[in-house]
């Protein structure tokens, strides 16, 4: 325990930790590795995988669902298995996709903390983690959505999904009109991060 070698367990470009919390974090990480709970290589692989995560991954899944109705159905039935067809894997978490329709709008929250499909979509936005969003979107979803610019007519039902346990959610937004001739990559480019959380509904904005 006396011969600590930070280079073995620690990213070389990180500055030395300054705060007590950061030191405790570093010490815990080293103890977990020294105790054989996981290896330094596994940690590096996890960091690399998280760095590859971005909303574009979700956009690819959405574009495939828009162009392939059998894929879309498989995605809604069992998203965790179906996204493996595109090379994505969130196991052991249960990945789940909720589809927006003309009469349903879905929005995702984690009231207890800030669960988010981070290994697929990357870091969640700051507002997603805020107490304001987490407390209000369950209680007054229409008011919160209006603040994001989503004005829902009365005939559209809101479904708020509180991510309280093992599932991680993504919204399948509706394909905007006027996109019939677009390729799958061009369709993916229309999809925004917020539309995957449900705080945006209309994706016509970037249609060429």
């Amino acid at each position, binding site marked *: 325990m006396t011969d600590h070698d930070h280079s073995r367990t620690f990213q070389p470009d990180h500055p030395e930790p300054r705060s007590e919390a950061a030191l405790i974090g570093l010490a815990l990480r080293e103890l977990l590795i020294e105790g054989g709970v996981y290896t330094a290589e596994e940690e590096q692989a996890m960091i690399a995988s998280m760095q590859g995560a971005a909303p574009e991954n979700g956009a690819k899944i959405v574009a495939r669902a828009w162009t392939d109705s059998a894929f879309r159905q498989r995605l809604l039935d069992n998203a965790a298995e179906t996204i493996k067809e595109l090379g994505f894997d969130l196991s052991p978490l249960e990945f789940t996709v909720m589809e927006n329709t003309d009469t349903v709008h879905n929005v995702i929250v984690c009231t207890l903390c800030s669960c988010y499909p981070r290994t697929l979509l990357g870091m969640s936005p700051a507002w997603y983690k805020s107490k304001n969003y987490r407390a209000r979107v369950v209680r007054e979803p*229409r008011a919160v959505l209006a603040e994001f610019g989503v004005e829902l007519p009365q005939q559209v039902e809101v479904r708020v999904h*509180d991510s309280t*346990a093992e599932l991680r959610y993504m919204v399948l937004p509706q394909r905007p009109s006027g996109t019939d001739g677009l390729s799958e990559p061009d369709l993916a480019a229309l999809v925004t991060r917020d539309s995957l959380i449900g705080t945006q509904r209309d994706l016509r904005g970037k249609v060429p």
Partner: protein
Amino acid sequence: MNVPRFIVGQRVRIADRTPPVHHRVPSYAKGKVGIIERVCGMHGQPERFVPGDGKPFKQLYRVRIPQTDLWRGYKGVPGDKLEIEIFDHWLEPAE
């Protein structure tokens, strides 16, 4: 063995209790009635992860609750819903 106790569409009541350990049922849902939206498989109990490994695993469900049943004076549309993940040991059949 692990046949789910509840089926999709069944009415269930979420327990109104607050054990002095980490648990994953927010206060606003305690005591509320909803229907099973889907069955989500066997998962570790949040209450048993701090002292152990979450075992024995329990069935997890998604429960759909009308927003008007959750919030007094809910300002929305009567059809609005909230869906939440609840473990088997927090659920009882409801009328």
